């Protein structure tokens, strides 16, 4: 009864084409934004920022990026961890080489550097697809990790090969380094997430997004109707890598503060982000958020319930946690192969008809 478009009249094309055509959705979106910007920053503490919100927001950006490439353009990539490492090392080199330039610019530049690297590794996609492309991007993953481990210039010749984020400020607030407050960490990530999600949404429903989807659905047909596969595929790699690079830069500079390439950006990270978009839903902006939330929050939640509330030994809880998360992933995919986004869409369909299903 509540959730329906009856009475919600559109009088212009602009209104008709908006992202949230249903009023209740729009309100929901504004309320989420209001809560995210107006309430959470005032009540967040270190634990909530470090364990839940900051990783969720950062992985949401990475998932958005991979979703553009895999979900919208249909190019499978296992190189996400490597591309995040490019973002992290780019921002590290930039912030240590030009300490006076704003960190926001450095993070965006790091995204730009990653976009170039992503396009380079995207070149094979013009010749190969599917599993073969997955293997090519897997090579990118291993090559990039090896590179950042091997060449000391990338980690400024430090003895251990670790990179450490020095303190940098935005408008006088520290956003990187140890003295950063939970609020500052959260807000800087939130700003990037909101801006990038807005960009992603509008890219994917414009010409570029339609070209990507045409390539995904059938590349020969797309070529016949005039989509240039070269520009479409490479632009997908560039935009996707930009997002992933920003995520990597934020992960290193804001969240971790210190990183080691093999551990922080290994193949596990690639799979984690891939799982996020598969569970969230391929080709959906909401899906990227849902998947990131699922993969970041569920382990923390299970740990707190099993160890904190039930008082189980930590090793048992850790093993059970892996089993529960794994089982849930399998169950989710059997029940709804198109992910959480599809479940959400089905719920909305049902709500529109409710309480008269026929």
């Amino acid at each position: 009864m509540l959730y329906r478009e009856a009475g919600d009249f559109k009088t212009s094309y602009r209104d008709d084409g908006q992202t949230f055509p249903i009023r209740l959705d729009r309100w929901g979106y504004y309320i989420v934004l209001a809560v995210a910007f107006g309430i959470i920053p005032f009540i967040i503490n270190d634990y909530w920022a470090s364990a839940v919100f900051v990783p969720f927001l950062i992985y949401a950006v990475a998932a958005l990026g991979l979703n553009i490439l895999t979900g919208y353009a249909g190019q499978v990539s296992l190189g996400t961890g490597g591309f995040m490492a490019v973002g992290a090392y780019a921002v590290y080199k930039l912030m240590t080489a030009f300490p006076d330039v704003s960190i926001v610019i450095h993070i965006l530049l790091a995204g730009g550097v990653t976009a170039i690297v992503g396009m380079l590794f995207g070149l094979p996609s013009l010749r190969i697809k599917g599993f073969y492309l997955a293997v090519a991007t897997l090579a990118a993953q291993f090559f990039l990790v090896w590179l950042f481990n091997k060449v000391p210039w990338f980690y400024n010749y430090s003895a251990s090969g670790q990179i450490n984020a020095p303190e940098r400020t935005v408008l006088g607030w520290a956003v990187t380094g140890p003295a950063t407050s939970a609020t500052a960490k959260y807000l800087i990530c939130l700003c990037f997430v909101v801006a990038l999600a807005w960009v992603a949404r509008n890219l994917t429903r414009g010409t570029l997004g339609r070209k990507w989807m045409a390539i995904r659905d059938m590349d020969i047909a797309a070529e016949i109707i005039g989509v240039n596969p070269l520009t479409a595929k490479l632009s997908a790699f560039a935009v996707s890598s930009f997002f992933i690079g920003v995520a990597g830069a934020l992960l290193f500079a804001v969240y971790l503060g210190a990183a080691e390439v093999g551990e922080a950006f290994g193949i596990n990270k690639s799979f984690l982000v891939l799982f996020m978009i598969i569970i969230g839903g391929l080709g959906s902006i909401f899906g990227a958020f849902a998947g990131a939330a699922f993969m970041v929050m569920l382990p923390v939640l299970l740990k707190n319930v099993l160890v904190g509330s039930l008082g189980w030994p930590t090793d048992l809880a850790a093993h059970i946690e892996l089993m529960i998360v794994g089982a849930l992933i399998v169950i989710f995919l059997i029940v709804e192969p198109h992910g959480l986004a599809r479940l959400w869409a089905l719920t909305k369909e049902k709500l529109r008809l409710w309480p008269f299903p026929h």
Partner: protein
Amino acid sequence: MKTKLTALVAAGMMAAAPAMADLVVPNLSYRTGPYGANGTQYADGFNDYFALLNERDGGIGGEMIQVPECETAYNTEKGVECYESTKDSGALVYNPLSTGITYQLIPKVSVDKKVLYTPGYGRTSAKNGKVFEWVFNAPANYWDGASVAIKYLLDENGGDLSGKKVALVFHNSAYGKEPIRTLEGLAEKHGFELSQIPVDAPGQEQKSQWLQIRRDKPDYVIMYGWGVMNQAAIQEAANIRFPMENFIGIWWSGSEVDVLPVGEKANGYKALTFNGVGMDYPVYDDIKTHLIETGKASQGGEHVGSVLYSRGMYAAVVISEAIRKAQEVAGTSAISPEQLREGFEQLEITPERLAEIGLPDFGPEIKMSCDNHGGSGMARLQQWDASAKQWNLITEFTEPDQEIIAPLIQQDSEAYAAESGITPRDC
């Protein structure tokens, strides 16, 4: 769904916070993941010593000690989560047993004012207390280990290593890369040739590395490995018939789990250590009566006396001695992290004191100060006897070559201070 999740997490967190009254020493352990086999023994030793103090003496200075455990799986992100979830519960000191997590925590602890104690791992230059106010890494660090190993080789060769070839097989991470600079310095000083052979984590696959060793024929191999990498390396060394007595591991590459899978062929393998091994210490009688027989030992006490159990226990011994010292200096039993830091800086563990707590000759003498957070750096060598299935100590505690190490520590800590805008304190 999200609100439900957050509510549940909130409920979980509330229940997790321990009572504030006791001394809280969180144990960021790992009993799962690729390094679980090693981490679980260390965590048991760490827990058991504090449990013993609680059972036998009623804590330290009348204060009971709480050791809440948090599973990190050797993963830095989980490590951060563990740190954040325990730091507001009155935690005094952290011992994460991971160089990666240590690097994350070093900047954080100086802001949150918590002590970070990293015995035998972590950032080597944290020895310089002028820069790293909150970090302690006594009794020995990675550079000390490298130097003691080379000193032992010098002794073996009548003081001359010139023209010899030494290969370093290392875990390709912050941990494994640590000794490279020291070894390069020592190679220059003593005229031996150093080759570096990295092994990517976790290190099950080392065929190509050992093929390279078979081709290069180094006289000695030094290994900085951890977890499954150790077993794989010792197995591969046995496969290419590399003489085990010329193969020396750092202290993290010298436990029972590393050599037992290789069986007879691991006989003669050497490793560094800074703590005693085996059951010949009086403290084990107490552990037996107070913990094992009452069923209070971690995992039923199945690892008591192993190398890593002993090392975890040793870390707990040093922390408890520092707590004692802090209580003495502060004049109160309920100490704060700041007071514990003072305790660490004034800590002195003499051989007599070690004998008093039932661990004679268990570790080197420790004497810390405001500018020395790393103790003497002494370590000794142990050798594996495969037929008796035990480690035997083969040298006394040896001093490292401070002539090489001290300038490197100075240089690295100053670089850190400059990078993070720290002004070194006066000591």
